[in-house]
């Protein structure tokens, strides 16, 4: 995550040169709205992820960029040109499909050469470019195999090569690693990341795996119910979520529902429904019109103490329900006196784990939690 954040700072912060632009795009299927007013701009060379639970409209959004769907309203631009009514075969974007959609009746080599042959390139150029991408994805020795003779990871590479050989302006990836097992997925994540850095190509990836999105992306758009909840760097999405959904969907968190009791220039005082008073640092996004609020505290930001700590803010008493030792850290569930269950992640330098049921004190700094507007229902 740290690496992704520093990587991001290398990019120009304000660049009018966008590869993909979506302007208030809507898509309605048989009366059901799958995409509602999605807007984002993707910079040239960016690794952009669209993250969300299944059915949130993320794949439809990608298909709108690829051209398999036409927007019901709004506009799609690639490299500044309107693509709204351009069919997929005339768009400078290539897709890696979820199940790869390889052509089983052709060899790996012919699969990859397909796009170039359709464009009627000369034989020697086709040969050269296919060999080039085969090398890029380390599949030189498999050129004459058929897709059915390959493993999942190998098919994935062929699908990547088949898209990349066309040198598109944008590479679209629909859950590219979804069909692979965990170990292979980790390995392909590294390779995707290397590929992106070496090619300098714009990648747009759809995924429901938040860890994958955090580790690979320059920026992430979190979607829910056809709308964009937040667009930001992995660091922003994790540390400064804008909505309770984003806070809850990305990583683990503890949420407290409550209302704003008082506010001053630098901090907010929130009283939860169970009566806890939580002091939260004011963020630039905070709107003073918000009254009903949800406070989010990440498990790793909470400190555990055996005796009452000296800090004055956000100190609560509770009881340890149970602790799980996980090697690098201990995962604790603590029940507060007011009844809430909290998860706490502690580094394992704690010499002795307290016994289950023993009294504990929890504390966190006002700057380590965030107050979000509760969605008016």
């Amino acid at each position: 995550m740290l690496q992704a954040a520093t990587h991001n700072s290398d990019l120009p912060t304000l660049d009018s040169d966008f590869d993909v632009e979506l302007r208030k795009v809507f898509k309605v299927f048989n009366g059901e709205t799958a995409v509602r007013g999605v807007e984002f701009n993707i910079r040239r060379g960016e690794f952009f992820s669209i993250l969300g639970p299944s059915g949130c409209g993320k794949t439809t959004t990608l298909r709108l960029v690829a051209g398999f769907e036409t927007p019901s309203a709004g506009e799609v631009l690639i490299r500044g040109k309107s693509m709204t009514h351009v069919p997929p075969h005339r768009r400078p974007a290539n897709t890696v499909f979820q199940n790869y959609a390889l052509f089983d009746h052709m060899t790996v080599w012919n699969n990859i050469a397909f796009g170039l042959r359709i464009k009627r390139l000369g034989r020697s150029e086709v040969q050269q470019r296919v060999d080039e991408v085969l090398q890029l994805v380390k599949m030189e020795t498999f050129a004459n195999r058929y897709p059915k003779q390959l493993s999942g990871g190998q098919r994935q590479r062929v699908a990547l090569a088949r898209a990349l050989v066309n040198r598109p302006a944008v590479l679209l990836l629909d859950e590219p690693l979804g069909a692979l097992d965990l170990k292979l997925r980790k390995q392909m994540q590294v390779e995707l990341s290397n590929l992106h850095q070496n090619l300098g190509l714009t990648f747009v990836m759809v995924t429901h795996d938040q860890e994958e999105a955090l580790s690979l992306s320059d920026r992430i758009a979190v979607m829910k119910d056809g709308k964009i909840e937040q667009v930001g760097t992995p660091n922003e999405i994790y540390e400064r979520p804008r909505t309770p959904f984003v806070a809850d969907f990305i990583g683990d968190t503890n949420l407290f529902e409550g209302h704003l009791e008082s506010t001053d220039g630098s901090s907010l005082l929130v009283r939860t429904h169970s009566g806890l008073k939580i002091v939260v640092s004011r963020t630039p996004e905070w709107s003073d019109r918000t009254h009903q609020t949800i406070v989010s505290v990440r498990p790793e930001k909470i400190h555990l103490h055996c005796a009452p700590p000296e800090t004055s803010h956000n100190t609560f008493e509770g009881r340890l329900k149970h602790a799980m030792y996980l090697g690098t850290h201990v995962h604790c569930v603590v029940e507060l006196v007011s009844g809430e269950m909290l998860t706490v992640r502690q580094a394992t330098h704690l010499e002795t784990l307290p016994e289950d049921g023993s009294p504990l004190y929890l504390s966190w700094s006002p700057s380590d939690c965030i107050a979000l507007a509760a969605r008016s229902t």
Partner: protein
Amino acid sequence: MTETVRNDRSESPDTPPSPEELPPDMANPSAKPSISWQALFVGAMFAFMYLPIAVLAAYSFNESAYSANWEGFTLQWYERLLTDFRIFSALKNSLIVALTAVVVSAVLGTLMAVGLARYRFPGKKLYLGISYLPLIVPDIAIAVATLVFLAAVGFSLSLWTIVAAHIVFCLAYIAIVVSTRLADLDPNLEEAALDLGATPTQAFAQVLLPQLMPGIVSGCLLAFVLSMDDFLIASFTAGAGATTLPMEIFSRIRTGVKPDINALSAILIVVSGLLAFAAEYLRYRSETGNPK
């Protein structure tokens, strides 16, 4: 695996039992060489199904012209067939009907299967049901309906009216086989081709059609066999002189079964069997094995 480890894990349900723990009859499958009742049952079923055909084939080599007793081996009935002008004329008619019906149905059936898979339109379920109805409706009903209809519109019967009637059921068979194949394909195949720059026509011709081919071919073989075999519909819709092979055979056995008909039947069974086998093999290879 050391002795201690195995002892430690012998309670765990996912460790396979070591050989000495297996029940004796499982460890020694070849110990009892008796024939199981299942094998006997299967044998009886096969005898029930295929014994008549075997008898027929045997009599086609019988020297006796009046079928009952075995009087020695001969190939004369097969020889006589080869010089029988009427049989060849009927065979030619049957082939014209079957080939025309299959070719027309292959094109229409494939388009129908692809169209049904790709488009959503009001009344699609109803359309699906109606288009596969010829598979369920008894042949006699189709035969009578076609005859009545043709008479009502004043269309004179000929060989081509048989072709039209055969297209009705061939179309349904081919469409259903192609649909099954289509359902097994990756739904994004055509989109992948479009994405790589192919026009919709190129995507269909270069990607979808080659992948559907095993289904189309096996559907065609099936439809061909059914059309060659059809007596009922053909005899109702045939015009004067348009005699197909099954009609010719039927007209001859009215005056008693002669050995040359046995010979013809034996040939027909072998050829249909080979075609059906080829259809199944193609389907099997396209589903499991490697192409080529």
